[in-house]
């Protein structure tokens, strides 16, 4: 493999796309390789007679899977071959470990108490792609930092500096460029600015993944925002990913068909566009992002507080916030998940909190925004749209989840349940997808899109990131009020050939690596 896999390991899972700032965190723990098979044994491990769902989308086939070191070395009928260990997999599906294409888990994985990634392993996730939405630890220079909060285009020298940072990031092993054009200050970036930066990422085969400018009808509208990703992909010559794709809010419900039509049209013309999605009808965001108008945020938080205190501007903010709240479906569709200044509101809706405080929801919103930056769950999707998008061949699975201490706050259940929930609800219960297609959207498709070689598939030569599970046992019992439950049903997990979960129990093994992309998007 031309892409070196660094020897350092992080947590139970691999971090994909950690920034330079993460380097110090990477070498949390070094696990020993299992001793290699001795002369008497052909393999370290054979999984016997499982139903192999190899990631390709093909129907399962029954086969033995053999592992040596950190790789899969044989798939087929291995007859009398011997291994140090054998597991009867006949009651299980054998699948590649899942790849979460949009994860906020980096900070948690960088924390000693969370680096095991148990909530992720319990979902079968063996690789996460971090630093999404244009966020995460960065090494950007002061110029970009200064520009970031302002609503103006960069000067040529500033743009050149930003391009230089992107170039450096890509040269150092970045898998692509992420953007968050919905929130301030990403929202102040013009398409041209992004195209010029995406071109730099394209030089190195990078991907452009974007939390699009508008998932609803806040500004340009969701369709135009998808068109913007298409334009960036076309003009920069790289792969575009509409991340956590959705039609947000009653005003755009039903628009999933239009999004599909736009992306299919672009693909027909030869533009490489993909999407990822979490299988829930609620999103998670910040109360300020969701309700406060962007113009009020120009300049950053201090400017926002000043405008809120300005008797002339405050009514305008109130009026626009009321419209935005309506876009989200009203105050009873917003539920607080984290608000350190007042944890008593966590788990309650904005309508509840406003009623308790005898305020109208807008006044309550402005008061809470003044106190801090409350994190919310926003019930804003129609399941029909979720299903329409899920059926598309170019839609990957992502969690968009955090990795937080168990019991802290009331996070979105996607943090714990995404992958098993998708299989439980949309494969087994609603029969929207076949198991094989669902697994494809979690494995070989993200590997293909992000050029992660030798993962996301089961075949000789691929890394031994593997799962054993009985689909009927997959479950996530958490709720939006009570999300802190580990997903159930993933019986075994191997990460780089190391057993991280054995018979539903974590082994404590920390076998994750930080991956670097292949130079050419290929190996060997």
């Amino acid at each position, binding site marked *: 493999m031309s892409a070196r896999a660094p020897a350092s390991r992080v947590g139970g899972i691999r971090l994909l796309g950690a920034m330079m700032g993460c380097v110090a965190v990477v070498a949390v723990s070094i696990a020993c390789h299992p001793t290699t098979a001795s002369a008497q044994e052909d393999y370290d491990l054979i999984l016997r007679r499982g139903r192999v769902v190899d990631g390709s989308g093909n129907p399962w086939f029954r086969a033995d899977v053999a592992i040596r070191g950190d790789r899969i070395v044989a798939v087929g009928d*291995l007859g009398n071959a011997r291994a140090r260990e054998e597991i009867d997999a006949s009651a299980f599906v054998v699948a590649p470990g899942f790849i979460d294409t949009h994860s906020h888990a980096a900070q948690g994985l960088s924390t000693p108490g969370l680096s095991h990634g148990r909530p992720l392993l319990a979902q079968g996730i063996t690789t996460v792609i971090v630093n999404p939405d244009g966020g995460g630890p960065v090494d950007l220079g002061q110029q970009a930092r200064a520009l970031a909060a302002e609503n103006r285009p960069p000067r040529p020298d500033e743009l050149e500096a930003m391009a230089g940072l992107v170039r450096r990031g890509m040269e150092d092993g970045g898998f692509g*460029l992420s953007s968050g054009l919905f929130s301030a200050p990403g929202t102040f970036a013009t398409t041209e600015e992004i195209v010029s930066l995406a071109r730099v990422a394209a030089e190195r085969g990078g991907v452009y993944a974007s939390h699009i400018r508008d998932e609803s009808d806040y500004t340009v509208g969701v369709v135009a925002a998808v068109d913007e990703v298409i334009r960036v992909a076309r003009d920069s010559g790289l792969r575009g990913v509409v991340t956590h794709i959705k039609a947000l809010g009653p005003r755009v419900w039903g628009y999933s068909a239009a999004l599909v039509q736009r992306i299919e049209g672009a693909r027909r013309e030869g533009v490489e566009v993909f999407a990822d999605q979490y299988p829930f009808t609620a999103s998670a965001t910040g109360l300020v992002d969701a309700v406060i108008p962007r113009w009020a945020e120009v300049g950053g938080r201090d400017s926002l507080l000043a405008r809120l205190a300005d008797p002339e501007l405050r009514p305008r903010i109130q009026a626009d916030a009321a419209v935005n709240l309506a876009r989200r479906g009203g105050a009873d569709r917003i539920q607080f998940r984290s608000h350190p200044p007042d944890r008593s509101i966590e788990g309650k809706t904005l309508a509840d909190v406003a009623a308790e405080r005898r305020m109208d929801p807008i006044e309550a919103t402005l008061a809470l925004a003044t106190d801090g930056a409350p994190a919310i769950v926003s019930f804003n999707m129609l399941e029909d749209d979720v299903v329409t998008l899920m059926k598309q061949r170019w839609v990957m699975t992502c969690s968009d989840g955090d990795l937080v201490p168990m019991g802290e706050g009331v996070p979105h259940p996607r943090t714990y349940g995404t992958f098993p929930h998708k299989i439980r609800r949309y494969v087994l219960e609603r029969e929207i997808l076949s198991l094989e297609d669902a697994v494809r959207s979690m494995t070989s*498709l993200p590997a293909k899109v992000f050029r992660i070689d030798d993962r996301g598939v089961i075949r000789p030569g691929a890394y031994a990131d593997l799962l054993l599970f009985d689909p009927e046992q997959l479950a996530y019992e958490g709720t939006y009020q009570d999300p802190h439950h580990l997903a159930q049903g993933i019986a075994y997990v191997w990460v780089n050939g190391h057993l991280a979960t054995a018979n539903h129990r974590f082994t404590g093994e920390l076998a994750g690596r930080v991956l670097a992309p292949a130079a050419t998007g290929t190996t060997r």
Partner: protein
Amino acid sequence: MRSAFGRCLIVLGLIAPVSSGAQERYDLLLRGGRVLDGSGNPWVRADVAIRGDRISAVGALGDAPGARVIDVSGLYVTPGFIDVHSHAGPGLASPGLSGARPLIAQGISTVFVNPDGGGPIDLVAQREDLLEDGLGVNVALLTPHGSIRIEVLGMGDRDPSSAELQRMRELVRRGMEAGAFGLSSGLFYSPASFSETEEVVALAEVAAEFGGVYTSHIRDESTYTVGLMAAVDEVIRIAREGELPGVISHAKALGPHVWGFSTAIVERVERARAAGVEVYADQYPYEASGSGITSALVPRWAQEGGHEAMVARTREPALRDRIVAEMWENLDRRGGADRLQFRRFEPDPSIEGKTLATVAESRGMDPIQLALALLEQGGASFVSFNMNPGDVETLMRQPWTMTSTDGDLVPFGEGVPHPRSYGTYPRKLGRYVRDQGVIDVAFAVRSMTSLPASVFRIEDRGVLRPGAYADVAVFDLAGIRDPATFQEPHQLAEGMVYVVINGELVMEAGRFTEARPGRVLHRSRQ
């Protein structure tokens, strides 16, 4: 809580520097195509590099000193197609046809021969025959149940003794040892139709020992004998008891009596798969099948002992009436005489391309009288228009359905063969993918490439990835088409631009190179 540094643009992840590494040397570089790697994933833009007989890289490959570079932008680049049910074996073994042009023009790079339980028993000799004049495409062999039964039991309607069954098992074993990928059967045809399921299970067990597959032209695709559903269940039973993958060959619901039964087939296969039985199907994308007077119309009991015995029975007054009555029933199963069109009748080629109804009328005979008359002259083959478009589409949409031609390879212009011999793959891509949107292109290509490779455990083919064999099809989806019709089938498919087999171009810019890089594949031993 989230690292709040800037919501501006950020580079996703960095750790180890990426070096461009030593420049690899390639022989051939297909640059800038829409690459469908054979999995169900949508296309990505990538270059495909070939060195020797293998793919050496897939990605953004930059300069390639020394390599032949072909710009394939705007074209789809896929693994070469694998035809899992082909009657091209005899053609490929003959000097004039071994170049396999009609197959290459469809993008086919590998064919499975000896289907329906037919073909030679001695696969070692067959391999030599196939290789004698070179091969345009790769060939994979099946060991044929029907031929083995005839070898051991003749044309009789009886069960094998235990010694005879041992002999049959031994012949299957020899075939598997010679590299066959599995056992084929045609339980619809006599004398295989006289076989009990237990006999087939006993032979399938031998194929299973070698990791082989069981493929079957099922006992009844209509309502002839046990009925379509029981025939599907028989494949499932053989797969379960023989402990090997089972394939329903050219799956269909044949004739008006069973139209709409495709959903029942799907239900049976899904239920079997849910219970852990590995069952698949293959299909050609037409509403007509190919058959002959004997197999489509004559009752099986009248066929015992072979063709001469059958003709003799039709002359016996006591039996003739019964045969005629049953032939009328069978004609009704096929939808009537205007749904049967002659494709090959050597004694009188003038009837080729005409329907049984037309020819009978012109001769002032009824269709069964005509059919019996033609049997006296050796019989005739025909195309049978017996499928319903909804059934074809339902089966096509299943993730376990592979693509096959069921086609022959005949001298250009000879007879009026089923157009599937020339047009199967382009038809599926042009008509069902591009024009009608029944399935999408990634799904279709998967059914032609990685799925058959997965079912038959063909290593390193059916996928585009470094290390796989360089079997590649490059085509223009907008221009792909199958001009072959039921009236004028001798027309090569259009739209295939480049075809590479084992690293060698066999089609270049739409022209045949005459290279013969095909191999006879040997099922790998683990």
